[in-house]
């Protein structure tokens, strides 16, 4: 059964340091007053106009196999196919920050307010990522309560378009999950609107199933270091 949840904005709003990092400012640089003011303003706007929502739907491995294989365009060797097969539980998910934020970013750029538009874009992107972390924790806790507390188990999210899971996988994921219920649509290029939305699968299992060598052919073209960072995190995480 699908579960729709509103997200408390205070739980996902990114902190100043994350916003400035996303804007390309190194951590050791002193933030000028006018830049700090922009960051605060973007946070305030996001708080006022975003409408973050999430959708969760558990899925059996056999059914997920069909969703994952999508249009048959995945990389022949990819980590997700190994990870989900060793999972204890799977759940499809979608999160969105709502349409109004995307529209506001567009309006700010149209009005030549590039600094604020760009800052709000960072806030919304980071909030979407934080929402996925929130969902991972929620699903992990649900699983631990329901299926016996396995201390070394974690839940992590994987999305079409990353780690060898072809973006065309969105089509079947949408058919099964129906994120339209929270206002997320998919176009023919597999692009979601509102833009600040994320979909994928949450995979719950022993932490070791999530560890892989990022040496796949497609890894050499990938600029995203998220997988490596979070593998380091779960390896060092005290799960007890």
């Amino acid at each position, binding site marked *: 059964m699908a579960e729709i949840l509103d997200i408390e904005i205070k739980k996902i709003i990114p902190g100043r340091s994350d916003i400035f990092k996303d804007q390309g*400012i190194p951590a050791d640089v002193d933030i000028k007053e006018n830049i700090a003011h922009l960051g605060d303003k973007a946070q305030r706007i996001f708080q006022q106009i975003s409408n973050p929502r999430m959708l969760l739907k558990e899925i059996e491995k056999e059914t997920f196999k069909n969703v994952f294989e999508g249009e048959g365009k995945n990389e022949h060797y990819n980590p997700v196919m190994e990870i989900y097969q060793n999972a204890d539980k799977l759940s499809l998910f979608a999160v969105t920050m709502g349409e109004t934020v995307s529209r506001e970013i567009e309006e700010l*750029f149209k009005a030549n307010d*590039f*600094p604020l*538009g*760009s800052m709000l874009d960072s806030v919304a992107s980071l909030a979407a990522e934080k929402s996925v972390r929130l969902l991972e924790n929620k699903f992990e806790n649900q699983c631990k309560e329901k299926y016996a507390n396995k201390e070394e188990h974690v839940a992590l999210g994987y999305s079409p*378009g990353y780690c060898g899971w072809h*973006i065309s996988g969105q089509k079947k994921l949408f058919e099964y999950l129906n994120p339209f219920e929270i206002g997320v649509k998919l176009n023919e*290029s597999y*692009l979601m609107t509102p833009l600040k939305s994320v979909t994928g699968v949450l995979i719950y299992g022993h932490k070791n199933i999530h560890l892989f060598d990022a040496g796949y052919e497609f890894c050499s073209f990938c600029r995203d270091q998220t997988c490596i960072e979070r593998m380091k995190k779960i390896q060092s995480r005290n799960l007890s």
Partner: protein
Amino acid sequence: MEILKNISNLLVKGEDEEVLKLTSEAIQNNLSAEEILNDGLIAGMNIVGELFRKHEIFLPEVLLAAKAMYAGMEQLKPLLIKEGVPTLGKVVIGTVHGDLHDLGKNLVGIMLKGAGFEVIDLGKNVLPKDFVDTAEKEGANVIGMSALLTTTMSAMKEVVNIIEERGLKNKIKTVIGGAPITAEYAAEIGADSYAFDAGKSVYCVKQLLGISA
């Protein structure tokens, strides 16, 4: 001239209201639009570009400066048209068909305008034919394309193909960029240049047009 130096300095600091005020003052003092543009606004943006390249300032400061530049340009625009001030060249930009991500493309447009190019922004979800039709109609020298998805980047090749089919390869150059794009991909599809980011796009376009950086 002192007032132009002040415009440039205030632009570097991102003081949009002050830049607007001084640009109006310079116009009232009968300075030519070309002088105000080149020695005030563009001179300031060139400093900003250099500081950004050396990592002495970062994206928010560049965008504050760009906002100040646009404020000055709004004042100057009627005069630039009246005086027929030439630009460095015309660039048609857009996010390719199927793709709605336009933040990177917008930054490219801002940087190019700041460097003195005329930018025709077709927006997002632009059909391959529309890029070439517009470039031909407007006499643009360069087409800049952006894509964020692996599924949409193939539209870039269609643009390159249309240019070739119409025999425009020597007239219209192409530069591509976006998260999934690499220099190898640019070479593979026959694009003339690859811009890693918005800052690099100015360098790429200048290089394609033989303008010294």
